[in-house]
């Protein structure tokens, strides 16, 4: 192989590899990137069950029900307008509780209950999950039906 062609060949290989990387990334992103929804946008978007998504909102007061095994819970997440039931099995994060903000990773089950693989709770004033930063939680907390009966 002539030296001149060698550099060209290497450059072509490098470019081809980068294009390949872009294609791999694009195809994996199409399948695996998970979108963030609130209960309201979740209904509007008509997400199919089984697709990985994130759900964020406020844990509705009085909605946490702990299962008999001591490790599974269900609760309702809501925003200003709608609510969504969530089931989770695992150790809940610190400061997870009624009235706290939460972001859940998971997917909708066939029965439209959101099955969470992991929960991220709002820790304190200094730390808000990114997705919740610009959602006004105070409104959800104040609506009448979120009060404990």
């Amino acid at each position, binding site marked *: 192989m002539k030296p001149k062609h060698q550099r060209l060949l*290497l450059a072509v290989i*490098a470019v081809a590899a980068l294009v390949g990387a872009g294609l*791999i990334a694009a195809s994996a992103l199409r399948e695996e*990137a998970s979108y*963030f929804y609130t209960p309201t946008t979740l209904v509007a978007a008509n997400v199919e069950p089984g697709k990985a998504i994130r759900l964020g909102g406020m844990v509705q007061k009085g909605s946490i029900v702990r299962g008999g095994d001591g490790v599974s819970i269900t609760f309702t997440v809501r925003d200003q307008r709608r609510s969504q039931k969530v089931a989770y099995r695992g150790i*809940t994060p610190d400061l997870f509780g009624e009235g706290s903000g939460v972001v859940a*990773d998971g997917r909708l089950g066939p029965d439209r209950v959101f099955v969470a693989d992991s929960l991220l709770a709002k820790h304190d004033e200094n*730390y808000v999950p990114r997705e919740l930063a610009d959602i006004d939680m105070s409104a959800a907390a104040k609506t009448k039906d979120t009060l404990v009966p």
Partner: protein
Amino acid sequence: MIAEAGLAAIWLAASMALLQFIAGLTLLRDGAGQLVPLIKPAAYMQGALCTFAFFALMWLFYISDLSVLLVANNSHIDKPLIFKLAGTWGNHEGSMLLWVTILSVSGAAIAFLEKRIEVKTLSATLAVQGFLALGFFAFLLFSSNPFERMVPAPIEGAGLNPLLQDVGLAFHPPTLYFGYVGLSIAFSFAVGALLTNQVGPAFARAMRPWVLGAWIFLTIGIAAGSYWAYYELGWGGWWFWDPVENASLMPWLAATALLHSVSVLATRNALRAWTIMLALVAFAMSMAGTFLVRSGILTSVHAFAVDPERGSFILALMLMYTGLAFVIFALRIGTVKQGEPFQLLSREGGIVANNIFLSVILAVILIGTLYPIAAEALGDKISVGPPYFNKATVPIAVLLMLALLVGPLLRWRRDDLGRLKYWLIGAAAILLLSCLAIWKFAPQIGIFPLLGIALSLALAVAAWMPLRGRKLLRTPIPVFGMVIAHFGLAVSVFGMAAESGFSSETLTALAPGESAKVAGWEVKLNDVNPVVGDNWVAVEGEMIAAKNGNEFPLHPQSRQFFKPPMQTSEAALLTRWNGQLYVVIAQPDQEGDGRWQVRLWWKPFVTFIWGGAILIALGGAIALLGRMVRRTKNSAINKWQTE
């Protein structure tokens, strides 16, 4: 007073960096350069001044001088001493000061030690370094002053994020910074060599120890960070594809590629433009890493500063430096002559394959990390998590491992696979037999853990093959370094594959006296007691893990910190040679039925992950030391001959 002296030292150091840069510019202009003799002293002064400023800040943390804003915000009078000191860099401003201090001290070290390359190239390299440092000094002085005063001084200080109050913190960030900054030196060398037309083996030999050193530190830093996340977060995972983890992995991938290609340039005088390009990319990645972590664009325990001004400052620096560097590359690359030719089937070809696979992995990680940020700018909230990264990177890593079975055995310039046919058959046999054996005993295992185990077994043999037929005493020491590093990769991949393929987990709630089982272990909760620490209180489980008649006590804790208020889990780990038992206890649930949530994992061979990483770093260290020894020996021989 000390704070003001520290601040003055930073200003003076910045002026030294400016002097270094301007003196370097005169070199380009008239060829001779009147100011060039000033470059080295300026580099020494800059190093000394920065070191002074850094120790001044450490002193302020040591005496808890709460009239300094940074100390007040990040320290607390009740904090244990080690965390007071580590607090120096456990925050945005302090960590940036550490960054420039390492940068300046390395510059001084180059000025003092480097004698192999031409004075002109060395001066240009130091000038580029001065230019880099200048940007970070500006950043420090104009938007992140670590010595800012607070009037009036508070009484006790705000405290440090409890997750960061850990011995891991004392070492993790500085190690990563050494790595990042080492890559900036490779960058300066590359630009310096481009500007002075010295891209060749001599330049590669001068750059190599810095790349190797940076890579060793990055390897240790990433492994330490991974282990820290594993035992401190209490989630049982060792890699989360968190953007901040990616920010450290990307420079490592680039450095690994660079490390291999710079060896080709140093020994074979090939891959010239390629190596320069990788040096630029490696530094761009460490800048991108700094940007991702420091800009507050991500939420994470690492993101200290949520301040858009700082984010845009770092972004501007990053775009300026890498942009300029790529412009210089485009303008000057025509002057870099084509290196020595080689056949595709050769050691050089193998290293090109290594570089290509590493670059592709790097690119898909970069895209996955930046995509959510780009999407958010367009109004979509997207998260890209482990499913994406595993799917996109693992298949390429499999190809990389396959190439590694053969690459190091090839000869330079050209080779013939026929020469290696027995090894090729042997490697294929190991792969096939181990796949079949694993599949027979564990048919439920996923394809990637299966391939990972098979490939790591084959690589564990392949790694040692370069020593075959050599006289061990006459083998160059760096070859042993390579062998150990490649073997370490096999060990690490084996741990990853075994952990992801065969972990078992039990999640349950136990009342005192009850027990739970995981993977043949029976774990009994005897009691739960309150415990008090320096600045926290905790509930501590008193547990006994039993298997085959052997009993081991375990004490997982759930800690409550007060400054700032926060809970953390201290997992109890029981290490056996073939894995770890990982036990987490949670605060009682609000219902208060007397049961405690307990999570048990058996993680087979999980410690191999970090053990392998230590071997990889050790291999690097052996290669580095071996080269240094040889260099001093050679220079002694030269001296003797000239006398």
